[in-house]
């Protein structure tokens, strides 16, 4: 079957639609997702197709919604809980961290929690400090959670379909800037397994690791650097947990130089963890320190220029790649 170019939000809708059609246990709840079709139109049309039982609007009760989703999952359903902004997921952190993530272990493996929280993060449009965070690191640190961050319509659809078929709690983190971006998506059925990084661009000089909305920026940087003959390999892990360290290490073995770019703040972010893994497992492969391009250590300001300065832009990525490439062994080094 042919590919079509569709938007990220449409790809997400197709995934939900197909899985709802295939499995009566799948349902979705969220604020304004039914009648209104969701703030990003991801759920548009689902109410008409699947009815009020399986497509429900909720009051403003994030802890309750997440908790109810976790309970439904424990009882064997396959809930998708849409949280408008990842920032609001903080209201449901208890249910995510203490219940969803731990239930399987606490029950000695007998209980499963096929719960999906769909939400979106990142900066964009001046929505300021409480609507702009990139909080994947918080979920990444919690054993038992899968953390998925698709950067393209193709990945979004395949990963969401896979999420709806596996049995563990998934933090499915979309990006507000990506909903209207387009990409090729096959007509036919496919899923993308968790833990498989995608090499979004092959290259030999530097490994550039990026996810979610940083992938388009990494790609733009790579294109720009290519003009100078610099060959950048862009690795998109797609799922942070599980993390495909194999693909990452293979790329590093080839390029010897690594830049990791994340929208989240530098301190305690996922990039640091990936860097720590690479330096531990590929210490002698590295020809330069791993460089992290990340958000500043700040809540996101409202002001446009300050907002932009708070998160990595294409020139920041370009500069970082040049830096690791031209990294000279200091004179004084042993």
């Amino acid at each position, binding site marked *: 079957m042919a590919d079509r170019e569709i938007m990220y939000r449409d790809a997400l809708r197709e995934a939900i639609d197909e899985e709802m059609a295939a499995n009566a246990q799948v349902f979705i709840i969220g604020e304004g997702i039914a009648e209104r079709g969701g703030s990003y139109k991801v759920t548009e049309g689902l109410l008409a197709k699947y009815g009020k039982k399986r497509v429900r609007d*909720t009051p403003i*009760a994030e802890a309750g919604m997440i908790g109810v989703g976790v309970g439904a999952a424990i009882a064997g359903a396959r*809930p998708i809980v849409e949280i408008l902004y990842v920032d609001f997921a903080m209201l449901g952190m208890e249910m995510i961290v203490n219940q969803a993530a731990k239930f399987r272990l606490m029950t000695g493996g007998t209980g499963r929690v096929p719960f999906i929280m769909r939400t979106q993060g990142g900066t964009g449009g001046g929505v300021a400090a409480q609507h702009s965070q990139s909080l994947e690191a918080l979920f990444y640190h919690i054993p038992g959670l899968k953390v998925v961050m698709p950067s393209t319509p193709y990945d979004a659809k395949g990963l969401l379909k896979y999420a709806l078929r596996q049995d563990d709690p998934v933090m499915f983190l979309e990006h507000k800037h990506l909903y209207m971006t387009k990409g090729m998506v096959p007509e036919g059925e496919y899923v993308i397994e968790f833990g498989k990084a995608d090499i979004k661009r092959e290259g030999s000089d530097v490994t550039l690791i990026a996810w979610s909305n940083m992938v388009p920026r990494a790609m733009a940087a790579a294109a720009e650097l290519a003009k100078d003959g610099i060959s950048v390999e862009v690795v998109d892990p797609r799922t942070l947990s599980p993390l495909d360290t194999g693909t990452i290490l293979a790329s590093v073995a080839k390029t010897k130089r690594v830049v990791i770019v994340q929208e989240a703040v530098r301190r305690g972010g996922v990039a640091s963890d990936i860097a720590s893994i690479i330096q531990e497992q590929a210490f002698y492969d590295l020809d330069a320190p791993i460089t992290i391009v990340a958000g500043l250590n700040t809540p996101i300001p409202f002001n446009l220029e300050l907002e932009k300065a708070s998160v990595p832009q294409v020139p920041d990525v370009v500069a970082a790649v040049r830096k690791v490439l031209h990294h000279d062994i200091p004179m004084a080094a042993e």
Partner: protein
Amino acid sequence: MPKKPSAGNTRPRALLEKIYKTAKTIRVFESEGIKLYRRGLIRGYFHPYLGQEAIATGACTALKEGDYIASTHRGHGHCIAQGAEIKKMVAELLQKKTGYCKGYGGSMHIADIAKGNLGANGIVGAGTPLGVGAALASQIRGSDAVTVTFTSDGASNNGTFLEGLNLAAIWNLNFILVIENNQYAVSTTIEESTRETELYKRGESLGVPSRRVDGNDPLAVYDAIEDCAKLCREGKGPFLIEAVTYRHTGHHVNDPGSYMPDEKKKYYAERDPVNRARQYLLDMTDLTEAQIAAFDAEIEQEFADAVTFAEASGEVSVEEFKEFLETY
């Protein structure tokens, strides 16, 4: 507050026998469990259900197969009333591989999913949204299963109470919230925790039919839950039942409960739920003291056998644990 059984001498013997045996099994489990704890065989927290047996017993006895319960940190009673195997419970407390959670969970996390018990919980209040979720799953799959969440006076001051019950209400779920109002959160009294100690009113304020029952009377609880469950299955849920009770002990095994006044302890001891279940048997059936004593002996034997079983069981090894984690 203690009242006569609602319908005089008319209960089937099987029901009364089941209620008595369940309440007594909980009583034995907790009393003997405390001894195991004191002998150092059980680690972590142990929150005894002693004194509150009527609630789990009455409620779970009124449920059908396929119904769900969600429990609390004080969860042994619910687990037993919902039909758990005693030996697997003891094995869990003893950290054994043969336990409900293979020793991974312990007292605060025993779950018995096959029996519809979604588990005890270490987080006060968490059972409410979880139970509502199970009720939602049931509604979505067109099942008429009912979910009972057991919760507590302390949890009724937590946001999960409002959010969970309100969701159940707007969705007309087959959900019953049972507040076990034992009048304390650890040593903090209910009067210190809220101005309005008639907790069922919180349900009313959300449009949920709510009422108070004598939480030391297993038949009062049974009747309330049977009634609500029936109405749920007719699409009239959810409901809230506040069952007033009192602990026999401190909050957990190591809490002497010195803040509990003697008069109150005495008042509730006179209304002991296990005694009451026993009296129902004597009053409403032909069973003799001797026959009841035989039940007791059986129950005690079951517990003793469970300990033997658990002690003979092995533990999950570190290697098995690490293997399990590879898929985590």
